[in-house]
């Protein structure tokens, strides 16, 4: 926790991310290279779904990260509204488009997996609809944070939306248990052991790790950019104030 407080200062965060980014970039590239090799070439076809199971290696990690990204937005929203954490609004602005992209990937790849397995690209069942709602919540967060002239008001409105929308996360997770859906029930995050053979589970977990590294990398880069953008805005504001003082 002490380390997180250390990073609450935007300048310190910037120095930290600049130190971490080169190693993180290299680790992400290597993780994706190995992950794609495992997913496309090494893993065996599924006994029921055949080769289409390879779509799972990108579909499931993007679903996990879109949900984790929204949980992060909610936590940052709480940090902004309750503690007025200086970095929370900046990081939320940086993380929302990344989470939205992962939600979009989940929807697109799910649709492409659904066509050969279910015979349709889309059905309005509970899991798919709640996932689509998550994507719209991300879009709402992005739009709200940029909707006001005063960025602080936009950040607070987006934080409230993030906290309200977090109710959708358990709905997504348990939708396959609460309602009759075409989507299969949980096969990894279960109370008993995962229902997937290790030969398929390993590439899936490896790809999830690669996606996680990319998520962290993108959030760090975008947070750093947002901090710098705010520094430019402040410098412009100071310059215009000094100019108006001189004119007066």
């Amino acid at each position, binding site marked *: 926790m002490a380390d997180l407080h250390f990073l609450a200062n935007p300048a310190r965060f910037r120095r930290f991310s600049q130190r971490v980014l080169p190693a993180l970039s290299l680790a992400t590239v290597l993780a994706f290279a190995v992950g794609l090799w495992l997913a*496309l070439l090494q893993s065996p*076809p599924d006994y029921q779904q*055949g*080769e*289409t199971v*390879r*779509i799972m290696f*990108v*579909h499931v990690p*993007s679903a996990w990260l879109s949900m984790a990204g929204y949980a992060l937005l909610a936590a940052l929203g709480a940090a902004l509204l309750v503690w007025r954490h200086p970095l929370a609004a900046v990081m939320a602005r940086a993380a929302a*488009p*990344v989470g939205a*992209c992962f939600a*979009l*990937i989940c929807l*697109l*790849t799910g649709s*492409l*997996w659904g*066509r*050969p397995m279910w015979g349709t690209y889309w059905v309005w069942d509970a899991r798919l609809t709640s996932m689509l709602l998550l994507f719209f919540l991300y879009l709402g967060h992005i739009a709200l944070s940029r909707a006001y002239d005063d960025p602080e008001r936009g950040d607070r409105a987006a934080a409230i939306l993030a906290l309200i929308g977090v109710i959708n996360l358990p709905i997504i997770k348990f939708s396959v248990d609460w309602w009759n859906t075409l989507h299969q029930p949980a096969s990894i995050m279960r109370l008993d052991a995962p229902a997937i053979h290790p030969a398929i589970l390993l590439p899936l977990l490896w790809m999830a790790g690669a996606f996680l590294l*990319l998520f962290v990398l*993108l959030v760090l*880069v*975008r947070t*750093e*950019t947002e901090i*710098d*953008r705010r*520094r*430019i805005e402040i*410098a412009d504001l100071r310059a215009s104030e000094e100019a108006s003082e001189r004119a007066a």
Partner: protein
Amino acid sequence: MSSYGVFILTAYLCVFVVLGGLVIASLGARSRVRRELAARGLDRPRHDRTRQEQARGAAR
């Protein structure tokens, strides 16, 4: 790959396009902002800039 190859390759292509686009957009925005910072002389630590401004003031 089987007859489903087109679905598998399209899915991976979607991932590549969306994530590749996001990476390019993020790095592009970063380099634009860095150029603007450099143009305003804000790319160095604050104590460096203060020292430089003081030196400039003394020279005047």
